[in-house]
């Protein structure tokens, strides 16, 4: 078999070219595979972050509703609290609702709450415990200017039908 020098050079060039193409294709496939694995992990982490934010948002909202009650809008205020509640807390609060409304009305209470800080104490698949440092003021017939309040809340939330609802609520003394 006769091979001309020019032909051999061409053959070598082609071989080198084919080699680099294969190398690049393998690299692309490999990087895509590892990238896909990282993408799945990154997605899971993002979901987890979103879950924590949803838990904190739900806890803040419920704590605000619970500390912002007015004799003028008592029915609506109590309903708001119940909407964010479930389980034992919902039962307890709804059984006390009548009494709460009476107290609000008798003393002409207007309370406003603020969340100073909130954090997650523990978390698992379907439940979480949240601590909240609450501030606010309570205004009533005797103190029309309002008196400042501080509370420490410990809430347990449950994942229920796509929403986080408060199932336990305790004021930490």
């Amino acid at each position, binding site marked *: 078999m006769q091979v001309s020098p020019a032909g051999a050079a061409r053959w070598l*060039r*082609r*071989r080198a*070219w*084919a*080699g*680099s*193409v*294969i190398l*690049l*294709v393998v*690299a*692309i496939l490999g*990087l*895509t595979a*590892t*990238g896909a694995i*990282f*993408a799945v*992990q*990154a997605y899971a*982490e993002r979901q*987890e*972050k979103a879950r924590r934010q949803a838990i904190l948002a739900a806890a803040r909202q419920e704590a605000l509703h619970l500390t912002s009650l007015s004799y003028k809008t008592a029915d609506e205020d109590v309903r708001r609290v119940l909407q964010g509640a479930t389980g034992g807390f919902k039962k307890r609060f709804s059984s006390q609702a009548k009494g709460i409304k009476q107290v609000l009305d008798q003393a002409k209470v207007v309370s406003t709450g603020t969340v*100073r*800080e*909130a*954090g*997650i*104490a523990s978390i698992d698949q379907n439940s979480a*415990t*949240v*601590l*909240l*440092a609450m*501030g606010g003021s309570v205004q009533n017939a005797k103190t029309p200017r309002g008196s400042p309040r*501080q509370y*420490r809340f*410990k809430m347990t939330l449950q994942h229920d039908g796509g929403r986080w609802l408060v199932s336990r609520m305790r004021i*930490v*003394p």
Partner: protein
Amino acid sequence: MTAIGRTMGRGLETVGRGLSRGTARSRAAFTSTGLRTQVVVVLAAVALLVGGGAATLYYQVQRAEAAEAARAAASAVAAQRAKAILSYDYRTLQSDIAQAKASATGRLQQQYTQIASGVIAPRAKKQQMVNQSAVVASAVVAAEPERVVMLLFVNQATQSNQLKAPRIQHSEVRMTLKKVDGKWLVSGLQPLSTRVGSAG
């Protein structure tokens, strides 16, 4: 490998022929270095892009995992650090203050050092003060790989020769912890509110 390479080369040539409809000149142009270089350049660009994407995702995952680890590590030491900084006994002042200093870092450490020698130590000795702090509950507000913000519920009991009974105070504290040489130390301590509480 060379067999596959040759097959791929031939395949591309066929595509090239199809694309360039015919003339010997364009066929030569394809088989010559021009288009081959382009193929390699495009593939290299794709590889770089995919590689860059994978690297970015890897970085994100690493950061998230580091934040997760930070969350756990800071939670584990928060109560101990708070107790060390907020408690003291007039009989063991020196070691208490040293321990508090060792638990803090940065500006908080400087501030504490000043307050400790200027206010805490002289008053504690004079009034025979014993200040005990307990963390009732703690939670993570935000976590990054090197920095974690926590919310603590703290109960403090103070005894002194000025007080007939121990004074109990309840407070909420925002604590910032930083990772310094692998150790989680307190870089910020901000009381959100304090009030007189009942014993227990």
